[in-house]
């Protein structure tokens, strides 16, 4: 275990959000294990109830060198939001955002039944991006689901987003930490494809530029 290096803030507060079924919980567990390995004390808060049934889901990660924090981030205090679905980013920013927050956003929409049935309209991509930019200090938009499907399964989008986060120079995690963490969590035959997804996510972020869009 290496000693915890300095964090941009302590506790450092990160939200991973998305829609039930997108692999939110796995993403937060993987990132949490990576940071634990790095010597940080990590607290993760999540609710599982809606997790498989198409509801909005959120995991709160508190990363600290000081100890355990509340599993719920206090309002307005997120440092980073990783969103697996763009409209979910807005919902989280409303509660936990502030002018200094960074956002990493998967652009692929998941339509709720209110949209499917025609009661509401899903916003246009350009509009969505502009709102998210307005509500953040830096924002990256990645077509993670598309890239994941090209790899054979949309579910890898979650790991790609964690890969992207690792490239954004926000937290001290890289592909080696990732490999160690998933080797403990997944069957051996799944490790290499997840490592590919992680690396692909990192590349996608670097292609967008480290300073965001």
């Amino acid at each position, binding site marked *: 275990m290496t000693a915890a290096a300095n964090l941009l803030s302590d506790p450092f507060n990160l939200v991973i959000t998305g829609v039930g079924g997108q692999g939110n919980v796995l993403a937060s567990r993987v990132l949490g294990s990576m940071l634990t390995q790095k010597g940080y004390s990590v607290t993760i808060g999540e609710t599982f109830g809606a997790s498989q049934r*198409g509801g909005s889901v959120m995991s709160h990660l508190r990363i600290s060198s000081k100890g355990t924090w509340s599993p719920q981030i206090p309002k307005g205090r997120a440092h980073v939001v990783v969103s697996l679905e763009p409209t979910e980013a807005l919902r989280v920013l409303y509660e936990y955002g502030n002018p200094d927050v960074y956002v990493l956003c998967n652009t692929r929409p998941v339509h709720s039944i209110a949209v499917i*049935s025609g009661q*509401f309209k899903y916003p246009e991509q350009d509009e969505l991006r502009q*709102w998210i930019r307005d509500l953040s200090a830096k924002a990256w938009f990645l077509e993670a689901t598309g890239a994941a499907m090209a790899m054979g399964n949309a579910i890898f989008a979650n790991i790609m987003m964690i890969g992207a986060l690792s490239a954004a120079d926000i937290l001290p995690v890289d592909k080696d930490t990732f490999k160690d963490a998933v080797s403990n969590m997944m069957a051996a035959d799944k490790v290499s494809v997840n490592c590919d997804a992680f690396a692909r996510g990192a590349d996608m972020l670097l292609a967008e530029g480290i300073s965001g869009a």
Partner: protein
Amino acid sequence: MSELIEGKPGQRYLLMGNQAIARGALEAGVSVAAGYPGTPSSEIIENLAKVADEANMYVEWSSNEKVAAEVAAAASFAGLRSLCVMKQNGVNVASDFLLHLVGGGTRGGMVIVPCDDPGALSSINEGESRHFARMLEIPLLEPGDFQEAKDMVKWAFELSEQIGNLVMLRSVTRLSHASGSVKLGALPENRPRARFRHGGFVLDPQEGAVTSAPVAYKHVLQQEKLEKAESLFEDCPFNTYTGPENPELLVITSSACNLYCREAIEILGVSDRAGLLKLGTTWPLPKKLIRTHLENCSKVLVVEEVIPFLEENLKVLAAELAMEIGPRTIFAKRDKTIPSVGEMNPDYVIAALVKIFDLSYEAAPADYVEKAGLCVMAGAPGRDLTFCPGCPHRASYWTLHNVLALDNRDGFICGDIGCYSLGMRETGYYALKTMHAMGSGTGLASGFGKLDQFGMDQPIVAVSGDSTFFHSVIPALVNAVHYNADITLVVFDNSGTAMTGFQPHPGLEVDAMGHDAPSIDIESVCRAVGAQTTVCDPFDMELTRDILLEKITGKNGVQVLIFKQSCALSPEKKGKPRYEMHLDENICIGENCGCNKLCTRVFKCPGLNWDEKNQHARIDEVICAGCGVCASVCPTGAITKKERA
């Protein structure tokens, strides 16, 4: 997770609260664990079941919580340590047995772990279990973080053996389902041999018969046990204080609220004004300890969830002490300093402290919040829960809803809690009209079924899950048959306890530990009690519709219809779509078709989308699970299915 048993003592691991509790039980050398699945408690038994063989344990998913408590108690009577686990509602079910159990006492250490769900994040009530500890007159422990969730379990077993009675350790969603860093302890080597001693003097607590009678004698003993626990609580290491010696305000809290209070004090920078007394032992309250703290401070804030349990018990103590130390001002729920319903978070504590200390605090700049609020309104359409793509319940409710409409006598469906509760919402076509405790749909239907005498002429349908059937539907079904109620019971048999993550139940050929087990066939049980029973596949929508229509139109006592189709997330189905789906854009003519977008506007499987630009439906290949049902829904035949190789 193998860390649970392979993790090294002295090392830190990131554990979910429920894993920490499970590890605590292993470190305590628990031999038997039993429970019934229910969010947020399920991972405790699940994790123990996974390591049961290695740890030489017996672990089961019992058919309901009362049976779980009985199974665990048997182990205790035989001198072993045992654990029983359930969500808050389960304690209601188990309470009949528990009230008898605590009167007679336990032998091997026995701990009950209810996991409450403040805010009802995964429940349909936020009723809590702490008041049961007071009613049962047993000690109540509440861990205040993840490390304590592990450590206190071990302590709870020791306490149980010291007093000879059941101990309750209460968790909440934000501990059970949150994760934090936990330093592991050692695992014990040996386990005692099981033997139930019953040949000694009848009143001997270790050698005699076990019962709560004679009550007048045993109740006194029981209260002495509780007094002993209180004296042990006076210097329990899990009651901690941080803050100045004479604080302006004493914050008293327990459980996950501990973390909220700590953070609120830190954010507002008032650690020199407010002291935090975190109680790990919340019933009975350690009077001397409380007195020491009350003596030093005239104002108190109590932070807890959900009912004012700590508040009321503290007020009793404060009243008793008032003559000696003077009155105290207590801010809490009853004066609305803290909300009286729902779960807590750091912001509620911040708000309370801001009010008491007359501070000002802004979570985020007001203009930011306003802007974000407008964006959410304009850009984040609501996301109501839905059945999963490919879920059998969507097809089932589609048919149920349509058949009741066809029948046209204002029929209705009574149900209970499970994935199929979503039948109350849009995704289930609002077909479900009552929803209460497990099994209550059938009991209510049994009652409605006897109201024809008073002129009621609506068809009555009850629905139940397969796990629920074993949990509590059987007695209601027997009742309905015996009293010849005219009802139709539909059992949604999706081969597992889907809602909570696919735990096995008595209808399956495998048990919690993964061993082979004899399965109990729901159809045979229904037939054996005398109900006319038919099995069908809800994905075969036409046939299901015809059978259902016939069942509800006849007046023939209890009819059972078993809808057999496994959950879309079941291990045999997940990631393996049965059909390749195709939507012919030339046949789907959208708004111009008489169906008026039946598939998306009404059926609403998330695997379907409406393409506004081109005015036709689309299959979303990321989401569609390939169940093939929408092909039967589309009236024009635009959607077709092809069996995958």
